[in-house]
């Protein structure tokens, strides 16, 4: 076996990707721990603050991400069945969804700032202790998640180019698979963020 053949060890690439995803999960895990501790300390204030988040935007974004997770999985299936066009279309849709998610997020943040809801703002300074912590964590967590959405979008765009150029094909799908895994991670993290922040009662 020559080394370049070794370097295309698909099993190994997948293992490496999973390890990377673990480390990402643990990173967000740190933020969730902080959230849990402060939630336990300020349950009422957190609930009050949570009610001020927009369920409309939150749910919309959840639907977007779940759908895009499905389409990226379907893209992988399509590639394996050698249906190039379908695969590219599904990938394109996923990337579009990522863009829409970010637009939504931007609008949502904008509205929050208009309502004077950000750490250090007049309103929050006067609100009961705990609310400011909630919003601090909210911006940090969703911001970091948003960065991951951007990375995911970039990765999938790159994958799309590779599929078009015929470098990712049915017999060598690892790149697409790993890109899709990353996208699922982005989705999974959101699935935790959404109930924790938006559905807190």
């Amino acid at each position, binding site marked *: 076996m020559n080394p370049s053949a070794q370097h295309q060890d698909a099993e190994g690439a997948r293992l490496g990707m999973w390890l990377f995803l673990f480390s990402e999960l643990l990173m967000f895990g740190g933020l969730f721990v902080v959230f849990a501790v402060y939630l336990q300390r300020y349950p009422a204030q957190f609930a009050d603050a949570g009610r001020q988040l927009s369920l409309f935007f939150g749910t919309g974004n959840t639907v977007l991400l779940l759908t895009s997770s499905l389409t990226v999985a379907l893209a992988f299936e399509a590639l394996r069945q050698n249906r190039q066009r379908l695969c590219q279309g599904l990938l394109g849709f996923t990337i579009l969804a990522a863009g829409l998610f970010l637009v939504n997020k931007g609008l949502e943040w904008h509205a929050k700032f208009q309502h004077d809801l950000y750490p250090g703002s007049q309103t929050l300074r006067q609100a009961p202790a705990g609310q400011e912590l909630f919003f601090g964590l909210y*911006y940090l967590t969703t911001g970091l998640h948003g960065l991951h959405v951007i990375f995911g979008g970039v990765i999938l765009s790159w994958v799309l180019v590779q599929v078009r150029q015929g470098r990712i094909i049915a017999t060598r799908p690892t790149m697409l698979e790993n890109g899709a895994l990353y996208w699922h991670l982005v989705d999974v993290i959101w699935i935790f963020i959404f109930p924790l922040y938006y559905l807190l009662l």
Partner: protein
Amino acid sequence: MGKVIQMGEYFRRGFLEPSGKQPALFDWIFSTDHKRIGLLYLYSICTFFAVGATIGLLIRLELIAPGRTIVGPQIYNALFTLHGVIMIFLFIIPGVPAAFGNFLLPLQIGARDVAFPRLNLLSWWLYIFGAIMALSALFGGGGAPDTGWTFYLPFAGETTTNVSLAVFGVFVLGFSSILTGLNFITTIHRMRAPGMTWSRLPLFIWSLYATAWVQVLATPILAITLVLILSERVLGLGLFDAARGGDPLMYQHLFWIYSHPAVYIMVLPPMGVVSEIIPVFARRPIFGYWFVAASSIAIAAAGSLVWGHHMFVSGMSDTAVLVFSLLTFIVAIPSAVKVFNWVATLYGGSIRLDAPMLFALTFVLLFSIGGLTGLILGSAATNVHVHDTHFVVGHFHYTMFGGGGFAFFAALHYWFPKFFGRMYNNRRATWAWGTMVIGFNLLYFSMMVVGMHGMPRRYYDYLPQFTHLNQIATIGSWILALGMALMAVNLLIALRRGQHVGANPWEAATLEWTVASPPPPENFEELPQVSHGPYDLKRAGEA
């Protein structure tokens, strides 16, 4: 005729042979050969170590007499912060795994490279960028960071010194460490040569394996902690500001959830090094192979649950103190298992006291002192007395420097002939070793004693009654420095003029000794078919 000599030269230089296609520097900094990357790490780590040690000597010089000697309080704070950051993040964490691990992992398991060679190169680049960022914090506006290497909030959020840049540098370093870890895990799972079963894995590889898991699972917590510091400084979120409802203790938890497991990143690979050296120089297979291998995993696992022992006096609940104290004692068990196994390996062996063995045995002694003083710190009652004194500083230098550092030197002397195909002068190495051991103990033992007497850490000044012991410590630091300089000179001379050695100068039985020294670019012409264990010394030199 000339051609024949050139061929011989080629064989002798192995992977060190320049490609001739591009400037020699590019051959190195863009190489994906794990051996070159290992040496890149080795050179950079040694450079940073020299810088860190110089700062350490300056700290000791300031402490030679009470009052202001060479620097005032602000610069002193910057000095120990920088010393800590360099020694922890640039020297001891990447030390053995990134330099020696990179070079030896594929060789010892019979592979041609690591699983992701390009990712490996990226790790080194990230390491260098992170290091430059952390060090340039020294010169930027606001002055050098003065928080200690622990960056405790709320102070780290408020100080006007250049903490943000240093913190971001450490973030990048953490990323490099994660990538190395996942590369190693994948390599060990996927690229072992035929016949290299898990029970034939050299113990150094077992220790790298355990370390890699800690790197992958604990470093992300450091990353998020650093992000939180930055968000505190840049965005003013106030998440740890008691005045705004936050809890500063939360920061300490997050910091130590990473940084305690990190001490096992620092010490497990050195333990692996010692487990390689002792059997070879005692001419006996390691005693209790599975116990040594499993204790690496046990240390990694148990070590993830003891971070609270850094916070006994920070205001945790008594229950938490009790639990963390108990767990701390439990980590001592697998560590002691290793020590007993090493000693049992020596029993009845025909021991050869060459330089690598001297350093390895010194590791066992100094690490044991560090470990036992760790128990004094781990039991809550005595901890209250010595917390934040020079006793703590002495203790962790015994573990990290006496343990990690000396094992690094042991590894350097053991694998030097493999890396460069040349041998150093053993007598000079022995002199250097002796000088270092004397200097080291004078330095840090005095620091432990003066700590017991109540001298706090992180002050540029102290009460007159501590003068005597501090003078001994400072003199010790000079002797130590002298020894290290002698060691460095000896190795540098050997690099150019050392005698050529064959493939297996120590008659060891692991796979790296079956290929030429220095190894050829792709390691193995044909992947080896492994037929014996790593310490089957009767079959040294065969695959």
